[in-house]
Structure formats: structure tokens, C-alpha cells
């Protein structure tokens, strides 16, 4: 499209320049209609969405309330130990009945008319179903053909792997392993190899930007060595670190794999340490923030950031591990929920270390707080001129795995998939 011929500042749909995906229209982030189509096609059909960790609901009757896309769901461990995900909408009058964020129950009851459900979502009690007897007559009641079996809560399909729980409203969704794909499964299993997990807790932030921007942030190995002074100065994430970028065959998921290099500013490092954010003289007053101890399961890489489209990011940054759940709220905002954890066999020192390194991450983190800030300000730019487009052409315009991080190929890959699904 010739930018000089634009006759509207507010295009109805995103207009792509050519077949590629290196120039992403701002309108891909600014339309409520498009957002609803994304919810349908990515969050509610054909995809597995992250809903939590098994360690959050260890005992029969334990539940947590969360979302799939913008739909409230309850993740619950039934009395037989199996995990179920049901939609938090009463079959009777549609009330979103579960208000607690977590807890332990024997069953679920909607307070409005006390319709009662098993933990698996089956309707098991309807008050006055057979009517009320008065003066020898039966008044009211549900119709004789009312079938409780047909009126349970909406049940989602559930899959677990390595202690992580996924759900889908689409019961025809492909198996989770196929959804992740053979290129991503090993990176998933590296972190979640079946060891028991220990829940540390949550951080929650509402970021006023389109949800895709968070996927893109973690598919963008260009910015960490520039925006994040801590990363570049202490060598945690730097353009000259040994690294690999890996995608599934449809380019929707990705792993950014990096191995910490020397933190110095030697001659080879000059290009990356001449950036404004490298601070030669920066020293920590308390070095315990970076008390990093390599762990056997790393198998080398010191940081692996895995984006599973559309709903979650899996973080290993040295000793700090977490999931980051993307919960959209309209086209212009999302809630970002961090669940930090450790492993049940961690020493006390390792637990302390993981919790200390958590200072780098989350809504106030030394490294991560500014990601939310730049996403907010990108969204402001998009809303201002939705006829324009971003430029994700570092490393060219193609899509493919690389053995370095000086590229925006993962973002281009995600939008290749996005176009495939959204334009179908």
C-alpha cells in the first residue's frame, strides 16, 4: 500500500503491505471486532490455553478460578484426584457464581437459586424441581422432561503435562503434544520434567496494551540487551550471548534459548557494550540479587523463554522460574498473572535464591517492570495512527529458526500464523 494514498486514519481492517509479516498494521491491535475474532479463533477454538499448575490444587476439592481468554473458568481437583475445568456460568440464569479466587469445596452451588453441581460440573441438585406441595396439590416444579444430565456446567477438555494444566473449550482440539510440536516439547519438558512443583505465589498486573504485545515482547530477543540495563551489564541477556531461536512448524510457539556470556566489555563485546544501557561501572551494593547457581537440569542454557500461543509464557531466567498467564480484556488491555514456583526437592538455599531473583521479574521487577511500560506506550502509538504499521525487519523479512538473537523472526513467524488463522 502506498502510504501517500491513505484516505482514512481509521481503517476498518488491518491492511498488510504485501504477503510478508514484517510490517504489522497498527490496526491489528486497535479493533474490538478483530479482538473478538481472535478470542474465537485462538482462545476458544483449536488451541490449548494455560490455566494453572497442578501444585495450585494439590488436594481433592481444591480449586482456583482463572480464565480462558475472557471466559471465567474454575480449575478443580475432583474427589477422585482427577482435574477438571468448568466454565464459571450457572446453567440456570447464567450467573458467574464462583467468586473466591481459590479454596476447597465438596461441590459448587450457585447462590442465586442454589443449583448445585459436582466438582466435575454435573448438575446434581435443583431446588423445587418436583414442585411444592400445598393443600394436597403440587405447585410448580421443572417440566417432567427436564434432564439434569443435559444441564451441567460447560466442561472444558483438559490436558496436563509435567504438572502444568491446559484447557480448551474445543473438544476436537489436537492432542497437547501435537499442539506444542516436536520442536517445542523438549523445551517445555526441560522445565516441567515431572518433578513436583512448589507454589511460591502470584503477582498480577493490568497492562493497558493489546495482549499480543506480550507474546511479541518475549519473541523479541532484540530489546533485552538494550532496554534492560541489568541484562546487558551483568551479561544475563546480551546480543553476543550464545543463543538459539526455535519455533514449532506453524511458527506460533517459540523458545528463546540463551547462555550467559562474560559480563565484560572486551574488544569482541564492544558492539553490544557501546549501547547506552551498558553501564561499565555499575556494581551491586548487595550482590545477592545475582547469586546464580547453575542447576543440572539447565543442560547449559542459562535462560529459556518459551512463548506458547496464545496464552502463556514459561520463564527460566537463571534460577528464577515462573509462568506468565496472558488474560485479555478487550483489544486494549490484558491482565498478566505471574505464578512463581520452585521444585519440591529444592534446598532451603535454592528456595531463598529463587525468591531473591524474583526481584528481577514481575510488575516491579528490576528487569520486567519496563516491559509493561513500553507495551502501554506502544498501544498509545497504535491508537494514535491505526493506519500505520510497525517494522519488524531485524534479520530480514523471512521466518525461520536462527543460531543468534539479532533478529525479529519470531514476531514475523507469529504473524504468519496469525494471518493464516485470521484471514481464513
Amino acid at each position, binding site marked *: 500500500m502506498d502510504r501517500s494514498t491513505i484516505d482514512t486514519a481509521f481503517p476498518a481492517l488491518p491492511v498488510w503491505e504485501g504477503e510478508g509479516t514484517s510490517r504489522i498494521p497498527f490496526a491489528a491491535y486497535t479493533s474490538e471486532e478483530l479482538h473478538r475474532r481472535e478470542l474465537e479463533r485462538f482462545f476458544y477454538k483449536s488451541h490449548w490455553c494455560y490455566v494453572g499448575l497442578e501444585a495450585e490444587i494439590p488436594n481433592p476439592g481444591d480449586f482456583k478460578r482463572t480464565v480462558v481468554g475472557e471466559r471465567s473458568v474454575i480449575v478443580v481437583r475432583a474427589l477422585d484426584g482427577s482435574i477438571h475445568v468448568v466454565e464459571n456460568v450457572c446453567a440456570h440464569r447464567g450467573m458467574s457464581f464462583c467468586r473466591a*479466587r481459590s479454596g476447597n469445596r465438596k461441590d459448587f452451588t450457585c447462590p442465586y437459586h442454589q443449583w448445585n453441581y459436582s466438582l466435575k460440573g454435573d448438575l446434581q441438585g435443583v431446588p423445587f424441581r418436583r414442585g411444592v406441595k400445598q393443600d394436597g396439590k403440587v405447585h410448580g416444579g421443572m417440566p417432567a422432561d427436564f434432564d439434569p444430565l443435559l444441564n451441567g456446567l460447560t466442561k472444558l477438555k483438559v490436558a496436563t503435562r509435567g504438572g502444568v494444566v491446559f484447557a480448551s473449550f474445543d473438544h476436537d482440539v489436537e492432542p497437547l503434544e501435537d499442539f506444542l510440536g516436536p520442536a517445542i516439547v523438549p523445551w517445555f519438558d526441560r522445565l516441567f520434567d515431572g518433578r513436583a512443583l512448589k507454589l511460591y*505465589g502470584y503477582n498480577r498486573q*493490568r497492562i493497558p496494551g493489546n495482549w499480543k504485545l506480550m507474546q511479541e515482547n518475549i519473541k523479541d530477543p532484540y530489546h533485552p540487551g538494550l532496554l*534492560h540495563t541489568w541484562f546487558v551489564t551483568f551479561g544475563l541477556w546480551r546480543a553476543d550471548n550464545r543463543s538459539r531461536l526455535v519455533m514449532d512448524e506453524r511458527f506460533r510457539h517459540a523458545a528463546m534459548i540463551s547462555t550467559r556470556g562474560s559480563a565484560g566489555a572486551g574488544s569482541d563485546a564492544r558492539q553490544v557494550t557501546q549501547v547506552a544501557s551498558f*553501564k561499565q561501572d*555499575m556494581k*551491586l551494593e*548487595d550482590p545477592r540479587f545475582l547469586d546464580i547457581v547453575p542447576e543440572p537440569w539447565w543442560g547449559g542454557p542459562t535462560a529459556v523463554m518459551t512463548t506458547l500461543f496464545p496464552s502463556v509464557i514459561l520463564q527460566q531466567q537463571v534460577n528464577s522460574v515462573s509462568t506468565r498467564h496472558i488474560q485479555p480484556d478487550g483489544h486494549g488491555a490484558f491482565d498478566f498473572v505471574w505464578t512463581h514456583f520452585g521444585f519440591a526437592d529444592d534446598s532451603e538455599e535454592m528456595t531463598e535464591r529463587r525468591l531473591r531473583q*524474583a526481584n528481577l521479574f514481575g510488575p516491579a521487577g528490576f528487569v520486567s517492570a519496563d516491559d509493561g511500560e513500553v507495551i502501554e506506550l506502544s498501544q498509545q502509538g497504535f491508537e494514535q495512527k491505526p493506519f500505520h504499521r510497525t517494522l519488524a525487519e531485524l534479520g530480514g523479512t523471512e521466518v525461520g529458526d536462527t543460531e543468534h538473537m539479532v533478529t525479529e523472526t519470531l514476531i514475523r513467524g507469529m504473524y504468519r500464523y496469525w494471518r493464516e488463522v485470521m484471514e481464513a
Partner: protein
Amino acid sequence: MIVDPATWQALVQLYADYAAAVDSGDWDLWPEFFVDDCTYRLVPRENHERNLPLATLAFESKAMLKDRVYGIRETLFHDPYYQRHVVGAPLVRASGAGRIECEANYAVFRTKLDGPTTVFNVGRTIDVVVETPAGWKFQSRTIVYDSEMIPNSIIYPL
């Protein structure tokens, strides 16, 4: 519990001075309210009440607070804002021999340069305050916030 008027006055003064310092924009003032071997924790109420150990920020020394000040000033990109603390009356839980355990409710308002003032963070502080040769200081400060859904990010000290 009731403390003697001099102790009470010192405590109220400490809270008022702290609020003025963290709202001033002069971040170097902040670590000086703490003893060297202090703890400072910013914790969502959910984690606190469920005894989950994760904090939003967890600092274990005055040196870590100084690292945070450096981070705010030099390394953390953020949209600048003003913040304003309003702190309630201290509630003394225990007191004796130069050491006070106390709490206070607080609200922090945020004002961005181009926007209206909004409620940014509310909660309560759970403190241990000790008397030192340099005056009353925080030995520990745990800020338990109700505002669990953080409006994007927290950069400046609460």
C-alpha cells in the same frame, strides 16, 4: 496498645517523614529510614494471607534498597509519575526497650503527567521500628497491599 507520648510522637513523625521522603522524588532519602540489616517486603495481600512466600519486591538489606534507588534512577525505563502517600494513624501492637511493632493503613495516589490522579495502591504496613543513635529506623517494613491488580507497574518506593 498505648505508648508514652514521646514514643508516640516519634512514631508519628517517622511515618510522616517517610511519606514525605518517598513522595519527594529524592530517592536517596528512602534507604536512610532503615537500619543496615533491614528487610523491606512489598507483598500482595493474597500471598500474605495464604502464607505464600513470593513478594513483589523482597529486599534484605539497606544495600538492596540502594540498588533499587540506582535502578529507579538509571536502569528502569518508565513513564514518569508523581506519587502521594496518605498514611493513617499508627496502630501499636507491641512496644518496649527501644523497639515498636506497629501497623498503619495507607493509600498511594498516582498522577501521570497527562492524566488525572488515580488510586494507585492501598494497603497496610506491618513494621518493626527500633531506636538507634541516629533516631528511630525501620528494622523491617512489610507492605501488604490490597491493590493486587497493579496498574501496570510499580517503580518508585512505597
